[in-house]
């Protein structure tokens, strides 16, 4: 840890905090000592919340998003359009798209993207399960909504190739300038990409 000796219990606590993403040794130490400053009930509630969340939340057996019901609230909603599946990397992406209230189809959460540096191969993603969902013949369109980074693009490319024989409509979300913002606030790389992906307008 930060070059200091600590009581074994504190050492352990810091190591636990250090497992969290974005938390380095210094922050881990600060968090550990902060926990000690809390009243005992709050610490118990904190620990309880961790365990409870872990015990309650499971993966939806249909779309593999994290949920407290089986299947998840989207998959069990009969008003959703079952002909469209939007493929995303993480459950948090589902929430983002749900916020739009415009999308009424279903989801499929891959639980990651193809990334050799993290040892994630296509087999490690929920791709087999996606193919199984297509067997019913109900699905007509797959929207590939993986992140627009190198790994996300690669995953989209992989899926596009894999799904081609199914004869579905396969689409990729567009990327470019955020809606409602000004061009002046967009960074040059995004703008340059938006220019590349420009479309014709005003055609009958």
């Amino acid at each position, binding site marked *: 840890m930060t070059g200091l000796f600590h009581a074994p219990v504190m050492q352990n606590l810091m190591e636990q905090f250090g497992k969290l993403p974005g938390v380095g040794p210094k922050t881990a130490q600060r968090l550990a000592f902060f926990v000690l400053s809390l009243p005992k009930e709050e610490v118990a509630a904190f620990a309880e919340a961790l365990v409870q969340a872990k015990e309650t939340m499971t993966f939806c057996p249909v779309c593999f998003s994290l949920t407290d019901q089986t299947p998840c609230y989207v998959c069990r909603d009969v008003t959703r359009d079952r002909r469209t599946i939007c493929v995303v990397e993480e459950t948090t992406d589902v929430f983002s798209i749900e916020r739009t209230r415009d999308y009424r189809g279903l989801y499929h959460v891959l639980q990651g993207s193809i990334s*050799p540096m993290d*040892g994630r191969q296509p087999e490690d993603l929920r791709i087999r399960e996606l193919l199984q969902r297509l067997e019913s013949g109900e699905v007509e369109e797959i929207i590939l909504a993986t992140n627009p980074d*190198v*790994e996300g693009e690669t995953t989209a*490319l*992989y899926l596009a190739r894999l799904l081609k024989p199914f004869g579905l409509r396969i689409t990729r979300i567009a990327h470019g300038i955020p809606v409602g913002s000004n061009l002046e606030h967009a960074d040059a*790389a995004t703008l340059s*990409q938006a220019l590349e992906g420009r479309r014709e307008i005003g055609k009958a």
Partner: protein
Amino acid sequence: MLITSLALQNYRNYQQERCDFCPGINLFLGDNAQGKTNLIEAIYYLSIGKAYRPVKDDQLIYWGRNQFTIRGTLENRQGAAKVEIQYQTDEKKSKTIKLGGLILKKNEDLSGCLTSVLFSPENMSIIKGSPQERRHFLDYDISQISRGYAKNLAVYQRLLFQRNNLLKRLREKKISHPDKNSELELWDSQLVEVGGKIIEKRLQTLGKLNPLTRLMQRKLTLGQENIEIRYLFNRKKEIYHSMNLTELLLEARQEALEEDLRYGTTQWGPHRDDLLITLNGILLKQFGSQGQQRTTVLALKLAELEFFRGESGEYPILLLDDVMSELDENRRQQLLELIQEKSIQCFITATDKSGLEKMEKRQMKFFEVRQGKIISREIQGEVKE
């Protein structure tokens, strides 16, 4: 383009210093190790938002302090803007770049505001150094004029990194013949696509840079020498703009596949290419004299000036660090002539004025630099620029 003022705080050996530049020629005079180059370096920093390789930001901080600030006023044909770059090492190291008072989201967004061409003795590595140095030279030029290119380079690096990771894993599993539909092919198709775009842009740029360099070289050597830059694909095959790059890359991939799997690295692509610089048909790196190599680098740098002007409609600023003493009388005269002909803002470091005071065609400003202080400023010539 112009930089009209520069203010430094805790930067290198400057605690607090400020100077106003003239739009003509600015001369930094002083003995060795007084801080002349540091001024050039600070101006360069303002133009690209980072230190001249391979210097680290931490090394730029005045000894014992925990932050440095570089401020400057830039002028281009769109108008003027203040730039401020601050780097600090408290708690978490961070760099903030402000342009016109607004914090830039990406530091790279500064590029293009003030384009600069730097010529220092280290530039000899363009000729003598590794292929990487020559690629960097070309990539810098293109990145300055195209953000799309800079983005492609970054994407390519990432793809390459991921592919190499995959290669190493395949090697561990002893899969020597991955079939066509494998994961490897997935990365390769993208590497070929992005790599092709990169090479295409490089060839295109070289097509513009080549005649400009030849012209400059002839001017510098009074028409005696003929220079040529050619693009070497995979360090062995000369290629031209008209060639089918996708085909070339796919071929190279096929050829290197076995080796790639054995070494766990990618042996083909724009990161393996080189530039071949010849003088009167002779390979300069191996057979050129020191003087020929130096003149060639100067010609390349002067060609860069014209290239940037062709692309952006404005001359970049020219930074000449410690080069006057390295050129013979004839070439020095040619260089000074060239500088005087064009309305380029110049920054020159030298140990004394000798040979430089004769440039009456342009306005000049002399700065005497001593131990991290600019102790005198003196203007010569009319303020007509």
